[in-house]
């Protein structure tokens, strides 16, 4: 009967647009629904815009029609086009007296406008009026709008009314008033005195209001948990009552009592119990109750279970709860559903902070997730690995991360994972050499995405060594860095930041160990500068590197022979548009013409770590100033004290100042005064060098600055300076801490684990196992996985020993091969079997049309059977089809498969269905006839134009509803039951 009703309804829609909607609207929606491409859709929408622009300004549009226009405007914006021409009409509609029109108006306005739009001011008045309405639905509509449209400035206009509404007799109003207050609280600090209202409303006797109040309270507790500790008992009591089904039945969802409220309460408890033993103890009972009561076979049950785990891992630890949580996690991980695995991995990451050992028993599951082609799962697993990284497994984990980083294109995530790699490498690097290699890789593949600070840290590391008094090791590190850079430098398209590091390191240490000649290094640098001629920063680094190399040559008493190509590069740069490059080029030329002594002063070798003392007050000039003053010079007036018209010789700042006042300046500038006072030179360091006499001392200061700009400077541009602040000394020598026994320690649990898993799984799947075993490739992976597992989860010193005991281990494994390798293999196999099995048989509640099909598919067949005896042949073939697809499945999946994978089925079934369509058409025709007679009195026949045949739509509909088949014409998807 339900079927008949919908058919009738759609028929009605076909005739008069249904519920008073016009034929025109129907046509629009249908044509949008039936478009096959974005271009087609755009064409329709553009046409629609033209139509509406013409019509909407008409002075006497009936209200109903206006509502339709507004919805059409919503469509236009939803499909990505601008409908601003109609905003004002939506605003006007909010003034309407009819509730439906008013609410539609409010809806459209909230969809169109953001809170700072100019038109909002026209609505505030209406909102105020509506908040006072006697009709509670009008009040609710206004409160909805308040939550979307009121900004910080307009809050006072409605605040008193909203507060008053907190005591309204209708729970729906109280609920929305609370949310409006929540919104105000988010927007402005001026309502903080109203916070007690949230506490009060927690005790509202309507569960809906209470549930809504949890939202603002959650926000408040996130910010400051301590002020709400007194509520712990209340929350626990509420949660207990919810779990005991004291709430109205209508809050149940899939047999769970108010699960969404439970989840929010658990979130709040997690915040309140964090690091608070006393508060946590009050929660243990209720959380363990919920653990017990949750139905782990439904999605929502698992959602609540997951939230319990989050709560347990956040509050003060309780061994028993942790144990339960671990059990749930292992259930999640063993599940065939990717969603549950994902939740399991996430939960594992939370629990691992408290009980670090828990990961070990799930190592194979974790590795499976890591190697899963599903990116989401993979990333979640990286998140977990990140949390469990220690110095023993950092190499494996970071290597994996880098491999993944190289393989993806998504720059957002690439940035993220690159920074994770850097962080882990900085924290746990087992050796300096490894660190540099790792950083090189990160830079090479994600250099444009990593923070500049990372580059500076790396340079600092190479320059400073490792904080130990071991110069030999430091210089060895530097040589290895230089060598690796010389190797990489030839690669095409290196990221700018990486090149900067390379240039800097080559400049500082390229010739330090005497292995490479100055001309070799400068030649390489020159190549870089030429290859990346668009990148001024790289060129700047390269030129400064030249200067350092030559300076060390001069200091060593060797004669500098500038390569021809360098020469021409420098000449080219001295005419560069960039003043910075120009300056560097000139300085280079100046430096290499100096003598040994001067050069040693300007650019002492390996002095990048020396602190440069900046005499900010320029005390050294005091004498000079004193003298000048005595000689009658004018005293210096600080810039802040003179106005824009003062005759300061710093024409640059004056220029700017004037520009900001007058815009363009048309008179000629005064001649710059002779640059007498040196303090001014100090104030405007960079561009005025040409005006400053290049005397030795000042020059040395300048070049020094350039040099430091590339390394450590307090003065130069902030982009270029090496930041020393906030960098902790995270690294150190490798921590080969623990002893060898742990090696064996780490391998045994693996196999033990493997065996236990076999016990569990193989017994069940013993039949399938034999077939799977024959699949060689899958089986072969397992030792590899095994190894990976060992290196990830193994004891703390497993890796340290790896280098020495690798061979040893291999032979050991070889000896035990038969039984030892067999067991873990079996475990993996069984694992895969379960995965495959569940692939065939999605758990009913997961992804898609699970359980609801039970309810809706069966009835969808019945009424028709009763109605149309003629249908039998089709009916049979259809059910036969279903049978063929899902004979082995549980009954509720039949519907799912019949519907969802009809197109994906074998072609034979398709054919049988299409051939049967004639019959259906026929029977549908019958229905059509009956229905149209039922509607006989109405104007049905005349209302159907050629294109829109009721018969067509009905036929389509019936077909679709019936069998979930896709007829080739038009867009039948539109008719498909979402839940069917």
């Amino acid at each position, binding site marked *: 009967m339900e*079927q008949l009703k919908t058919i009738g309804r759609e028929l009605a829609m076909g005739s008069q647009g249904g519920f008073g909607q016009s034929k025109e609207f129907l046509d629009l929606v249908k044509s949008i629904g039936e478009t096959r491409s974005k271009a087609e859709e755009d064409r329709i929408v553009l046409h629609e815009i033209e139509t509406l622009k013409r019509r909407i300004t008409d002075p006497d549009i009936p209200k109903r029609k206006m509502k339709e226009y507004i919805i059409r405007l919503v469509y236009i914006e939803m499909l990505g086009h601008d409908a601003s021409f109609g905003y004002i009409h939506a605003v006007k509609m909010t003034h309407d007296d009819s509730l439906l029109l008013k609410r539609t108006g409010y809806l459209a306005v909230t969809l169109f406008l953001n809170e700072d739009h100019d038109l909002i001011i026209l609505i505030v008045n209406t909102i105020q009026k509506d908040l006072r309405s006697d009709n509670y639905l009008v009040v609710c509509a206004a409160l*909805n709008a308040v939550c979307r449209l009121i900004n910080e400035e307009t809050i006072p206009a409605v605040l008193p009314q909203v507060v008053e509404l907190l005591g309204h007799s209708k729970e729906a109003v109280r609920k929305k008033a609370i949310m409006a207050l929540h919104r105000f609280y988010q927007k402005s600090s001026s309502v903080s005195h109203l916070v007690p209202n949230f506490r009060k409303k927690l005790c509202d006797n309507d569960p*809906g209001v209470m*549930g809504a109040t949890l939202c603002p309270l959650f926000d408040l507790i996130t910010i400051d948990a301590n002020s709400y500790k007194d509520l712990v008992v209340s929350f626990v009591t509420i949660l207990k009552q919810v779990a005991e089904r004291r709430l109205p039945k209508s809050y149940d969802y899939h047999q769970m009592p108010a699960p969404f409220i439970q989840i929010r309460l658990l979130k709040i408890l997690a915040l309140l119990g964090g690091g608070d033993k006393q508060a946590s103890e009050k929660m243990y009972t209720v959380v363990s109750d919920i653990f017990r009561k949750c139905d782990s076979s439904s999605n929502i049950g698992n*959602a609540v279970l997951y939230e319990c785990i989050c709560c347990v891992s956040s509050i003060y630890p309780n061994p028993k709860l942790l144990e339960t949580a671990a059990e749930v996690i292992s259930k999640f991980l063993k599940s065939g559903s990717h969603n549950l695995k994902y939740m399991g991995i996430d939960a594992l990451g939370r629990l691992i902070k408290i009980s670090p050992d828990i990961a070990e028993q799930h190592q194979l599951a974790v590795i499976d997730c890591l190697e899963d082609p599903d990116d989401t*799962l993979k990333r979640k697993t990286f998140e977990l690995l990140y949390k469990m990284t220690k110095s023993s497994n950092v190499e494996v984990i970071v290597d994996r991360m880098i491999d993944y980083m190289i393989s993806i294109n998504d720059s957002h995530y690439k940035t993220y994972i690159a920074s994770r790699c850097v962080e882990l490498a900085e924290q746990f690097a087992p050796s300096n050499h490894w660190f540099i290699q790792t950083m090189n890789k990160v830079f090479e593949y994600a250099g444009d995405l990593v923070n500049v600070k990372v580059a500076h840290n790396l340079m600092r590391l190479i320059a400073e060594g490792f904080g130990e008094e071991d110069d030999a090791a430091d210089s060895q590190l530097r040589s290895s860095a230089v060598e690796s850079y010389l190797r990489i430098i030839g690669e095409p398209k290196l990221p700018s930041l990486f090149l900067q590091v390379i240039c800097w390191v080559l400049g500082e240490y390229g010739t330090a160990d005497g292995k490479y000649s100055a001309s070799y290094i400068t030649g390489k640098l020159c190549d870089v500068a030429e290859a990346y001629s668009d990148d001024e920063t790289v060129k700047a680094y390269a030129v400064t590197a030249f200067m350092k190399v030559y300076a060390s040559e001069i200091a060593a008493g060797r004669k500098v022979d500038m390569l021809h190509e360098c020469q021409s590069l420098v000449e080219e740069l001295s005419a560069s548009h960039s003043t910075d490059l120009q300056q560097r080029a000139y300085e280079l030329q100046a430096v290499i013409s100096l003598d040994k002594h001067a050069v040693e002063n300007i650019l002492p070798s390996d002095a990048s770590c020396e602190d440069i003392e900046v005499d900010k007050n320029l005390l050294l000039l005091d004498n000079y100033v004193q003298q000048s003053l005595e000689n009658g010079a004018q005293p210096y007036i600080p810039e802040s004290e003179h106005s824009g018209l003062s005759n300061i010789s710093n024409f640059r700042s004056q220029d700017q100042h004037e520009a900001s006042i007058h815009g363009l300046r048309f008179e000629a500038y005064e001649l710059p005064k002779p640059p007498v006072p040196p303090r001014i030179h100090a104030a405007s360091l960079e561009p005025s060098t040409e005006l400053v006499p290049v005397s030795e001392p000042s020059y040395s200061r300048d070049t020094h600055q350039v040099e430091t700009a590339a390394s450590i400077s307090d003065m130069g541009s902030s982009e270029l300076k090496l930041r020393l602040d906030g960098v902790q000394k995270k690294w150190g020598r490798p921590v080969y801490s623990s002893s060898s026994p742990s090696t064996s320690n780490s391998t045994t649990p693996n196999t033990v684990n493997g065996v236990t898993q076999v016990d569990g799984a193989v017994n069940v799947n013993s039949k399938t196992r034999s077939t799977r075993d024959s699949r060689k490739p899958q089986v072969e992976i397992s030792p590899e996985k095994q190894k990976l597992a060992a290196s990830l989860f193994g004891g703390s010193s497993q890796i340290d020993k790896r280098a020495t005991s690798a061979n040893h281990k291999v032979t050991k494994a070889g000896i035990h091969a038969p039984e030892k390798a067999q067991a873990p293999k079996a475990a993996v196999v069984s694992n895969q079997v379960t995965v495959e099995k569940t692939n065939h048989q999605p758990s009913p509640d997961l992804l898609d049309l699970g359980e609801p099909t039970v309810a809706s598919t069966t009835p969808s067949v019945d009424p028709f059977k009763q109605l149309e005896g003629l249908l039998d042949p089709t009916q049979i073939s259809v059910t036969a089809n279903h049978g063929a697809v899902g004979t082995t499945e549980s009954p509720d999946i039949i519907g799912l498969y019949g519907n969802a994978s009809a197109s994906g089925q074998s072609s034979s079934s398709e054919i049988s269905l299409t051939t049967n369509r004639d019959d259906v058409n026929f029977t549908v025709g019958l229905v059509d006839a009956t229905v149209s007679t039922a509607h006989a009195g109405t104007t049905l026949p005349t209302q159907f134009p050629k294109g829109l045949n009721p018969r067509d739509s009905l036929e389509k509909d019936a077909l679709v509803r019936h069998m979930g088949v896709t007829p080739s014409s038009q867009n039948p998807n539109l008719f*498909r039951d979402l839940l069917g």
Partner: protein
Amino acid sequence: MGIRFILMVNKQGQTRLAQYYEYLTLEERRALEGEIVRKCLARTEQQCSFVEHRNYKIVYRRYASLFFLVGVDNDENELAILEFIHLLVETMDRHFGNVCELDIMFHLEKAHFMLEEMVMNGCIVETSKSNILTPIQLMEKA
């Protein structure tokens, strides 16, 4: 804030309903919808119903030809959101009776009204179907 947006998009990538709980310009919405839909459509049924996109996490679920996509913050319970989608569909189903894509298209404003009852300020505020539907039914009668 929790939920940042709710989208309904069909298999062809055409938007059927869009509700944002933070302001994005038309261009930003267009771009976001395009990117997300491309991402989600490319996934298989076995894969997770969750996708990371920029700083959102997208929880999505497919019903017949229609995808329901919910963009959430990082600390949201994904499974719960997945069930929230189902609750939404069940609620629409109760109202429309065997809800289909066309119902939502024809009654866009009603679908929005239901969302308005269920989600405010990006938080789930109401999960009782009767509470959600009562105001809408009253309005229809009025």
